[in-house]
């Protein structure tokens, strides 16, 4: 039973790692719409919204745990991490909404015609630049997890393959 639980936790960690790598690479592609072309930028950006939801789903236990204990016994780093994640989520929603509002390919292709209010372009630019900084902070706060997980699931299996 215990081994089954640890097996499932390990496979979840693996999924999370590959998903995070995918999110990071996609984010870099989405950040350059003039190079990746507008349709790729918009569709990949929309797809990232759903991938982010899965990312949150995989971190569900941590989110619930910290939310319950936030005003009681949460360490400084966890508290900072939790607040930063909420800011990141809000920024992500701003990027998504402003992206939908200024969309010229994906949203019209879905048959929606949105009335564009002023300010959405600037907001999209600003929130994306803030997201870069927040991504850096998010990565820094999860650095030990990233290093240990990459060592465990990427480098260690690769080394054992070479040693054979």
């Amino acid at each position: 039973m215990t081994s089954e639980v640890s097996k499932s936790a390990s496979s979840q960690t693996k999924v999370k790692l590959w998903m995070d790598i995918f999110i990071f690479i996609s984010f870099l592609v989405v950040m350059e719409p003039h190079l990746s072309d507008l349709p790729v930028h918009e569709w990949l950006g929309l797809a990232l919204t759903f991938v982010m939801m899965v990312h949150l789903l995989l971190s569900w236990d941590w989110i619930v745990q910290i939310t319950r204990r936030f005003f009681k016994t949460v360490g400084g780093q966890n508290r900072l991490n939790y607040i930063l994640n909420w800011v990141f989520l809000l920024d992500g929603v701003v990027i998504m909404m402003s992206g939908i509002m200024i969309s010229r390919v994906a949203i019209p292709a879905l048959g929606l015609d949105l009335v564009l209010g002023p300010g959405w372009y600037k907001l999209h630019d600003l929130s994306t630049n803030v997201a870069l900084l927040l991504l850096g902070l998010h990565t820094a706060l999860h650095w030990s997890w990233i290093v240990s997980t990459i060592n465990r699931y990427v480098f260690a299996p690769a080394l054992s393959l070479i040693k054979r």
Partner: protein
Amino acid sequence: MKTLTRGLIILAVFVLLAGVVTVSVNVVAGVAVSMGLIDSPEERAAEEAAREAASASEAPEPVEREAPEDFNLFAYVVQWIRSTGKNVFVVAIPVLAIVVPKSLMARLRKRS
């Protein structure tokens, strides 16, 4: 079932935040328009239409278009690396600013 419920909760949070963001932006834009700080979408559309009509009436005679430049894969890759490198650099700054002092402190603590 548990996963579906959790997914729906996350979706609800997304939708709620999206609603808050949209309403806030529209309220701020409405206030700015009423104070005359920015043009309303209708005014901007009318201005744009007038500008387009003016430019159409003054349109120069069509010039033969130059053939598009050949696609240069090397230049494209270099451009990708440059602009993506810039973004990676911006991400790396906070990572280095937090991780390096932290690991240095941990090493110093270990030594002492």
